[in-house]
């Protein structure tokens, strides 16, 4: 089995989880959501690379299987605990310093809009060491730079073990950029998420 001992102390400091996923995303996210604890308290902010005209199918689909509410990020709206948020198709998602969502139609970053780097970088500046960043399956290099910045700001970084990912490139680039990341398979990632016990004092600021 794996050990989280070096970073265990940080668990209770976590306030927010950001996840970046590209090719192969539907099935890994389904698996994670199905096994998520119903009393999972942290907000999960997700950039999934989607077709620019993607409708709301994925939101409806994930709402069926996730134990907590699933919705699109809305401009200027605060981040609530115990919710899963997706960046809307064809918009970048950013976090403002007052912990609200911001959206932009700026140029694509790493050929992607939404870009994982854009969410991760802006979230890391706001949440610093209270942030957990996860890179899952994908066939490009988006997210590597953002994950690195999360680590630089003292956050926790996890990468889906490239050997177990449907598309290894994105996890591989992320690991190269942030070698200190934990490389875990999907069920280990779920165990990790379910083991987070946020301090109520961290979450209370949302209410």
């Amino acid at each position, binding site marked *: 089995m794996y050990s989280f001992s070096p970073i265990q102390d940080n668990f209770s400091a976590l306030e927010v989880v950001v996840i970046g996923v590209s090719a192969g995303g539907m099935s890994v996210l389904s698996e994670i959501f199905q096994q998520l604890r119903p009393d999972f308290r942290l907000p999960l902010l997700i950039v999934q690379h989607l077709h620019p005209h993607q409708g709301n199918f994925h939101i409806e689909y994930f709402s069926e299987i996730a134990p907590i509410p699933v919705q699109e990020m809305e401009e200027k709206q605060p981040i609530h605990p115990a919710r899963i948020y997706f960046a809307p198709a064809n*918009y970048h998602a950013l*976090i*403002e310093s007052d912990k609200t969502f911001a959206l932009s139609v*700026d140029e694509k970053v790493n050929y992607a809009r939404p870009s994982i780097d854009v969410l991760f970088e802006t979230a890391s500046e706001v949440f610093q060491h209270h942030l957990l960043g996860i890179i899952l399956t994908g066939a490009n290099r988006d997210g590597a730079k953002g994950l690195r910045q999360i680590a630089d700001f003292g956050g926790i970084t996890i990468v889906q073990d490239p050997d177990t990912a449907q598309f290894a490139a994105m996890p591989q680039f992320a690991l190269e950029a942030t070698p200190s990341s934990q490389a875990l398979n999907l069920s280990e990632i779920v165990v990790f998420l379910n083991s987070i016990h946020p301090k109520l004092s961290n979450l209370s600021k949302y209410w």
Partner: protein
Amino acid sequence: MTKTEEIEINLLLDAIYRKYGYDFRNYARASLKRRIQNCILRAEVNSVSALIPLILHDKDFFSEVLVQFSVPVTEMFRDPIFYHAFRLQVIPYLQTYPFIKIWHAGCATGEEVYSFAIMLKEEGLYDRTTIFATDFNEEALNTAKEGIYRLANVKYYTNNYQKAGGKSTFSDYYYAGGYDSVIMDASLKKNVTFAHHNLVSDGVFGEMHLILCRNVLIYFDKQLQNRVLNLFRNSLIRKGFLCLGTCESLQFSSVENAFEEIEPEYKIYRLS
């Protein structure tokens, strides 16, 4: 954002405002900050503060910063389903007017202006329509006036046009330009007036039947959003239409009760 950086950004925006009159102080910070970071990289300096003397003493440098700050990103028939909904929900009302005035606020490089011109043409409304297409970015406005776009995007635009309910073929509306560009048919801009207008500081445009302002408000903070939305309310005729970007909304704004939702999903509103 660290406290120091926040101070630096405030000083930078103050300097720009006091020297050149462009007011970015009420822009949403997260996006603006990324644009400032791009300026830092391009200028090869290492802090936000280091940009300030360059901006104050070098007008040409400021012009480049201004372009960076307003990098316009748009496309033909962006959100095709919106255009589809517009044809069904709004066109029938517009048909009842003897003449139609449209304000396209924040038109950037003009792709959506031409998209609307095409749609109005196909719906038989173009000849009685006047479109005022405005932006504060002169360079973008010049591109819009020229109507010359990259050939590489045409395939994507053609796809958008079809999904938007286009009644002809997209290639009817442009000609080959140079080896890598296309020129929009000049008849599309016959009734378009391109003009400089800054939503942050300029006033009302009167008696509009329709205002289009898509994916502009997301760059503003709440206070500036409310200012601009009030400007729109005062520029519309009674029962005039307002179209915002698909991720923008009147919800929680100061004009929320002044409008009714015609098509909530595609952000088409009508003044009550």
